[in-house]
């Protein structure tokens, strides 16, 4: 499947994960090669975040095999993953609320200057870089020294994304990066993802929005209740099919009818919207 003869950057085979007696994942296969975008889609609680946390080194898998560039691994910490060039945007963002924005941006990958015992943080560089990267995303912060906890939800999300994009070397993992974003910012993030592919990175992209996922994705993994519901390449599946498979059947059609019959003003639009959501194609 991969364009090159090399082993894919990340490959999961039959991976499973339990939290105590809660089975979050079972028998999942996944592959991301260089210059490829794999989308993970699925309902709430399907296990998407759990899956990417395994790849990011935050959890260890209990079953199956996890390979990075062909080599069997089991990361003990996210640091190990980072060292192999895997950068992640977590759904809960993983920021330290009381720390300034720029410190959060560079946390764990600080830029330093000077030598020996006088090696110190390159603060002007870090501040200006953080400010610039965010501005590029359309976030004009008042002050990069503001504790990140005082930013709005979307601003925080943008910091996490900008950070991962900045540090991602080989693989970029994005867990619902566009969830809290405005229209403009979401567009920027999609562009980033496409750019990352162009730079030869492998991307794992989680989203609830098929309109965001389909245009950029090369492969689509559909999860349901911790199991694989489908695993498609782009050629195998159309946007409409994908959306239908994500939404899980006839319920939305029903909803649209219901709203319309209730005489909700604007229901035609919602109906249209429901169609977008994959009910009728």
């Amino acid at each position: 499947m991969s364009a090159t003869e090399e082993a894919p950057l990340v490959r999961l085979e039959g991976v499973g994960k339990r939290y105590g007696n809660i089975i979050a994942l079972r028998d999942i296969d996944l592959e991301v090669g260089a210059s490829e975008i794999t989308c993970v889609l699925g309902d709430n609680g399907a296990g998407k975040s759990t899956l990417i946390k395994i790849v990011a080194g935050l959890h260890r898998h209990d079953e199956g095999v996890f390979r990075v560039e062909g080599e069997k691994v089991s990361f003990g910490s996210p640091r190990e993953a980072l060292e192999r060039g895997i950068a992640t945007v977590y759904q809960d963002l993983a920021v330290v609320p009381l720390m300034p924005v720029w410190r959060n941006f560079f946390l764990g990958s600080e830029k330093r200057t000077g030598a020996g015992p006088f090696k110190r943080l390159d603060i002007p560089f870090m501040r200006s870089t953080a400010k610039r990267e965010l501005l590029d995303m359309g976030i004009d912060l008042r002050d990069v020294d503001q504790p990140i906890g005082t930013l709005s939800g979307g601003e925080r999300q943008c910091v996490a994304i900008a950070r991962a994009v900045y540090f991602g070397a080989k693989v970029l993992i994005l867990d619902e990066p566009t969830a809290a974003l405005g229209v403009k910012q979401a567009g920027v993030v999609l562009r980033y993802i496409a750019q990352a592919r162009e730079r030869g990175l492998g991307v794992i992209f989680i989203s609830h929005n098929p309109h965001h996922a389909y245009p950029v994705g090369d492969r689509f993994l559909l999860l349901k209740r911790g199991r694989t519901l489908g695993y498609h390449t782009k050629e195998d599946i159309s946007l409409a099919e994908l959306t239908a498979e994500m939404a899980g059947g006839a319920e939305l059609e029903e909803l649209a009818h219901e709203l319309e019959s209730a005489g909700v003003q604007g229901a035609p639009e919602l109906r249209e919207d429901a169609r977008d959501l994959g009910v009728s194609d």
Partner: protein
Amino acid sequence: MTIAPPAADERIAARSSFRKLLGRPEIGALIGAIVLFVFFSLVADAFLRASSFSTVLYSSASMGIMAVSVSLLMIGGEFDLSAGVMVTSSALIASMFSYELTLNVWVGVVVSLVVTLALGFLNGLLYVRTGLPSFIVTLGTFFMLAGLNLGFTKLITHNVATPSIEDMDGFSQARAVFARDFTIGGVQVNISVLWWIVFVAIATWLLLRTRSGNWIFAVGGSAASARAVGVPVTRTKIALFMGVSFTAWFYGMHILFNFKSVQSGEGVGNEFFYIICAVVGGCLLTGGYGSAIGAAIGAFIWGMTSNGIVYAEWNPDWFKFFLGAMLLAATVVNLVVRRRAEAGK
């Protein structure tokens, strides 16, 4: 969006530079300290003399040296309840090792450094391995060390205090390093005051200007997030525990070479005073926020209060009452200042 931001952001209200100054975390504690200083200057004649000031400084340094590392540990989100007795342990080790084997005291000093660092490492290791809260782990080691201090001292010296090492080889050099008094402008100042300032400067630099400092804030602010972005959380925490043990060693040496002999029961309870200094100076108990300078000011508040009450010649039966009242007053002033600064209109 590629438009440059407007030169002056319309979403920020103007703020005087005085207000900006007030925004720094240490300033609140500093103003608390100044209020106390003025207060004691008014109620106690003896307080304003240069010699009194040096006594207050010494007393502050004796809390402050430990408060430096304890505040770093607290910023990193942990407690060390064994910090107080560890000081005594380190002094006991150095003293007994040199004395019993009749060696140069420097040998004891080095052995004590190694053992004390190992104790700190053990604290850290127990913490990360068991996953128990550090409060419990170091409580356990606190009791154990307190027991070992007494048990070993009695076993070895058949007494509850070590014999004086004043006449041993190397004592006077060691004393010169750890405990000498010297005169500045006609006032005797103990060298521990200088060391205290050095430690505070190093810790401040570490916190604000180095990668380690970034990690310390991060592991205290949110260990899970820090781990997720690749900060070596366990390594950082162990290093913080070892930082505490390092200053415990240093301060233990000061006690040993200043007072020549050590009582095995000393040090119990001091761990809380260190924590108090850190918290009065603005460190959050929950971690992730604070400064070494703040802790130093906290120690200074402590030194002023505990000695100021003596200078003011208040009835010692009420000593603790005054101490508590001063403590509350200082922190409330601190708080009011910070609130004002934040409201900043």
